[in-house]
């Protein structure tokens, strides 16, 4: 139970997930002239971190599933690592991932190789999800002992679908189950060195009218990082633009916003008319 920390070097908590030109974390200004940036990553300070739970919150149609698919595609193809995708929404289809992979590489063997690294599991209630996570732990320990590559990212889309039926009323059991799931996810992230990404819905705050993540206060303490996705009001012709805002982070100041094009998952197309709308 007690760890004396003497040696820091080689911490496994940090991994840079996306192949990006390196961005110094102090420069948070949005650069209009860098089309090769995957702008969501600037938000996440050069990528998702292993050992942590990152939450993507947004309303219906805000692009949460698309972000999860992009994460899965990037980790499987760009980083050549295994991904476990836990789907509780039914939003995942192989054709959607294939489209994303086709945009990244024309070679069919590479696309197939990347698809094979994505393991899809479906869990439609909380007990199934807890089972899935337990099984994953078991598999990882087997894989580690046999030397084969274990998954480096676990995507849960969405956590609200399995937890919200349990909440409401005076039921303590629902909250206890939710916290048990939270503990499983955090333990998984920390012990197995995995980056966990979860999606959550949003509700409107009664007093301030702002969007806030669903599942209540107890859940709000669980993720280390939270990104809120919102449909851009001045979207105009392009329907795939979203505003992504960093609302919780253990290492960056919050409130940082980026415009993201979820169709291509990059900065929005530059057009003279829309330049005035940019941040």
């Amino acid at each position, binding site marked *: 139970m007690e760890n004396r920390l003497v040696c820091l070097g080689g911490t496994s908590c940090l991994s840079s997930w996306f192949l990006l030109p390196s961005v110094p974390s102090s420069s948070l200004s949005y650069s209009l002239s860098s089309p090769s940036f995957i702008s969501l990553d600037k938000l996440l300070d050069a990528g998702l971190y292993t050992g942590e739970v990152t939450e993507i919150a947004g309303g219906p149609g805000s692009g949460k599933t698309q972000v999860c698919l992009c994460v899965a595609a990037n980790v499987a193809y760009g980083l050549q690592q295994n991904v476990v995708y836990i789907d509780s929404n039914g939003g995942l289809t192989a054709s959607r991932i294939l489209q994303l992979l086709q945009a990244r590489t024309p070679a069919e063997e590479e696309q197939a190789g990347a698809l094979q690294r994505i393991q899809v599991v479906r869990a439609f209630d909380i007990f199934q999800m807890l089972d899935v996570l337990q099984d994953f732990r078991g598999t990882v320990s087997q894989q580690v002992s046999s030397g084969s590559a274990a998954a480096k990212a676990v995507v849960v889309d969405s956590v609200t679908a399995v937890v919200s039926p349990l909440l409401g009323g005076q039921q303590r059991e629902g909250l206890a189950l939710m916290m048990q799931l939270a503990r499983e996810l955090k333990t998984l992230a920390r012990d197995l060195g995995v980056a966990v990404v979860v999606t959550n819905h949003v509700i409107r705050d009664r007093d301030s009218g702002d969007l806030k993540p669903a599942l209540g206060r107890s859940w709000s*303490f669980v993720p280390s990082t939270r990104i809120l996705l919102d449909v851009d009001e001045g979207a105009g012709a392009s329907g795939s633009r979203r505003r992504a805002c960093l609302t919780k982070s253990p290492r960056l*100041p919050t409130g940082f916003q980026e415009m993201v094009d979820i169709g291509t998952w990059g900065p929005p197309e530059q057009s003279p008319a829309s330049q005035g709308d940019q941040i």
Partner: protein
Amino acid sequence: MPLPWLCQHFHPPPLLLARLEGRSSLKEIEPYLFADEDSSVHGGILEFHGPEGTGKTEMLYHLTARCILPKSEGGLEVEVLFIDTDYHFDMLRLVTILEHRLSQSSEETVKRCLGRLFLVNCTSSTQLLLTLCSLETMVCSHPALCLLILDSLSAFYWTDRVNGGESVNLQECTLKKCAQFLEKLVSEYRLVLFATTQSIMQKTSNWTEGPSAFTHPTEADADYRPYLCKAWQQVVKHRIFFSKQVDFKTSNQFSLVSRHLKSNSLKKHIFIIGESGVEFC
């Protein structure tokens, strides 16, 4: 790790007690925050309370850094025990803070600082209780240990409530024992304990805080609804409420309201969080 029953039979001899006089007081640990504290008073239990994203954990890193940094760099060169109950502790962030605060930060100096930090993970309230039971020998064998941090005490709240069945006493019993143990440790060995509790309860509309709320109404204070067991409420000396400023101009500022429970005095402080951690405004 010695068995818990062993600890009950181990009483430090008076000579050892004399060594413990040298532990740091609250005022030394954070002079800005505890300017009104009597610096001859050693030890005490302080509770950090607030919703998520209000800077409680950052404040813990700030206090930890202050304790483990060497005296030449403005620290206290004392040891800290950090008990993490929800896998929240971010080593990278602490190292970043240390590197920014050290005048010449090298791997060696950072390692030496981290050598003064003990980190324990607990995954259930029973495990927390057992850990606290076995802490006594550790505190005795490390006279430089003077700060205990518990982040957070409310992590097992819902799990305990369900495991205790219908009886509220059963639900709270482990946490009650933890609170009693902590109080015993803190008062016997003159330690300082900072424990965080999360604001997981909504304030009900007919909740009345007591006379003090009417004389010093502040937003963070008014939202407080105690939900942990009475044994814990009784051992807390200071309660510090954290909140984020909602004003657009000051959107990166955090505020804390420190209430001394016996004297009922309130003090408000504003701080921002930079690369090197908490900075008071």
